[in-house]
């Protein structure tokens, strides 16, 4: 004999007093074994704690040491962090990251918003196809992307050839070998990769905005621009937060692209924190310093991830 109470199935033995059933329910909520849950979690947590979270904690510990990776290290407290703050090369690497955020996150989101609002309600056919193409760069190994773009930016590559063809010979150069242009050139690769991700996300979001809102805006005499700021942008708030979070994290994490295409050069004009982590930990024997850069980088990533989520949660309409 079973009765449904607020979505839960209670079984009552014939003749058993209702009060007793309720007591049993309070002790053991229905349908759910308790302690066995830990058994299901154990294997996943074993790997996660041992090979991911544990090493993160260990990295933090290492960041308080001066250690070359071979001999015995010694405790230096916050010295490494002082270097992170004061060393011009390390500071420059974080500035480079900020530039990359513009290209990896801000630019793709702006482009994505613009295009999504442009094509949102024009009933385009073959959206599946366009979406699949625009999303394609996400699936290609970054090493491959780095190689393709290194070739495109090469002194005698397609980009310069195109510039020469339209009479802009003066502009053409070895883009990745140029102190001023290497970083923006790599940034544009990020724009190329993440623009599609943003657009796909925004197009999905726009479909969820009720048409009636747009009709109301039209009735009120709103132009395209007003409509965008009054209806589309607020409606895409959640999607925008997701896109910004993802792409900003990708920008901060960038390693493969830079290591394969420029290794941080020319000079130090494209070094980013992750490249410094690699160089210091595995080539220069400054493991403690590398660990402190990694910790600062990870902290920044956490701030971005939680900061942007917070901003969305504060949205009164949710």
């Amino acid at each position, binding site marked *: 004999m079973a009765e449904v109470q607020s979505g839960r199935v209670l*079984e009552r033995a014939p003749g058993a007093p209702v009060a007793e059933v309720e007591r049993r329910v309070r002790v053991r909520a229905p349908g759910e074994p308790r302690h066995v849950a830990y058994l299901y979690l154990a294997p996943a947590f074993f790997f996660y704690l041992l090979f991911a979270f544990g*090493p993160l904690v260990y990295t933090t510990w290492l960041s308080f040491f001066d250690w070359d990776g071979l001999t015995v290290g010694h405790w230096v407290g916050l010295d490494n962090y002082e270097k992170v703050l004061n060393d011009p090369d390390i500071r420059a690497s974080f500035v480079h990251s900020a530039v990359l955020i513009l290209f990896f996150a801000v630019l793709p989101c702006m482009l994505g918003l613009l295009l999504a609002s442009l094509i949102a309600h024009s009933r385009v056919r073959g959206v599946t196809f366009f979406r699949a193409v625009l999303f394609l760069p996400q699936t290609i190994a970054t090493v491959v992307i780095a190689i393709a773009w290194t070739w495109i930016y090469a002194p005698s590559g397609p980009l310069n050839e195109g510039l020469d063809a339209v009479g802009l010979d003066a502009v053409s150069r070895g883009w990745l070998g140029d102190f001023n242009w290497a970083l923006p050139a790599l940034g544009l690769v990020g724009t190329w990769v993440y623009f599609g991700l943003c657009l796909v996300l925004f197009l999905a979001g726009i479909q969820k905005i009720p048409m009636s809102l747009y009709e109301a805006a039209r009735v009120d005499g709103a132009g395209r621009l007003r409509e965008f700021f009054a209806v589309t942008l607020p409606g895409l708030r959640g999607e925008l937060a997701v896109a910004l979070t993802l792409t900003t994290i990708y920008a901060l994490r960038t390693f493969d692209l830079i290591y394969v295409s420029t290794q941080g050069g020319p000079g130090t004009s494209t070094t980013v924190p992750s490249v410094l982590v*690699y160089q210091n930990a595995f080539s220069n024997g400054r493991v403690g310093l590398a660990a402190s850069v990694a910790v600062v980088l990870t902290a920044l990533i956490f701030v971005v991830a939680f900061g942007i989520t917070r901003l969305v949660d504060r949205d009164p309409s949710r």
Partner: protein
Amino acid sequence: MTAARRERIVSYAVLGVFCVLVLYPVLSIVLLAFHKRSDLVTGFSIPDSLDFSTFKTAWEEGSFNRGLLNSFIVAATVTVVSAVLSTLAGYAFGAMRFRGSDALFYLLLLGLIFPYEATVIPLYYVFRDVGLTDSLWALILPQIGLSVPFGTFWMRAFFRSTPSSLVEASRLDGASSFVTLWRVLLPQAWPAITTMLVLVFMWTWNEFLLALVMIQSDELRTAPLGLALFAGANRGTLDTTLVAAAAVLVALPVVIVYVFLQRSFIRGMFAGAVKE
């Protein structure tokens, strides 16, 4: 009506332009790979004939057969093991209530965010001390550890979306929690599991930093690592066609899977970020 039509044409044009922008670098590298070094290609150029000889040279010279096999071993092991672990953990988080479930879940969620840069230093030095560096284990174990958060997050969302009455009915029939998972829930879970498999496989296949740090021997290189070193070695001689062919070989497996399962890819990529 005409305005709507004009709008649609503009939309097609804009989408078309951006598709070309996305495809241009991809296609130009594919076309480059069909050329020979002697063709002296500098831009976008369609080869005269479909010539696979450059692929053959890249396959043999860069020993990419070995690299692709290593990548496959690593990616398949990581994908299968982390899928099993994630399904079990996702089941616990999604369909059971227990003390500390929120705290444990948030602890695991951190793993969605932090990068290999944050873990690779101690992993390398500890693995070196226990003699695990320069082995595929050095790639497999950490990647299981960092794949489990996404998998668990994803499967938890699936198990939460299944009606709890199913679980309760099964339990009333006297089924154990494992039988409930195996007989009742898993048969419906395949779309969710496929998405997880596909994404974890892609991330593992494309991973570079860990392999760069851990692997020293030529015969243990993964495909992306082999490609990066191969490109570096050919930078002086500038045989771009050979490097392009190698790059296509490395990217191809994932792109083929993507062509068939693109819905799964796109759905899953966003799920990782969409917090409830």
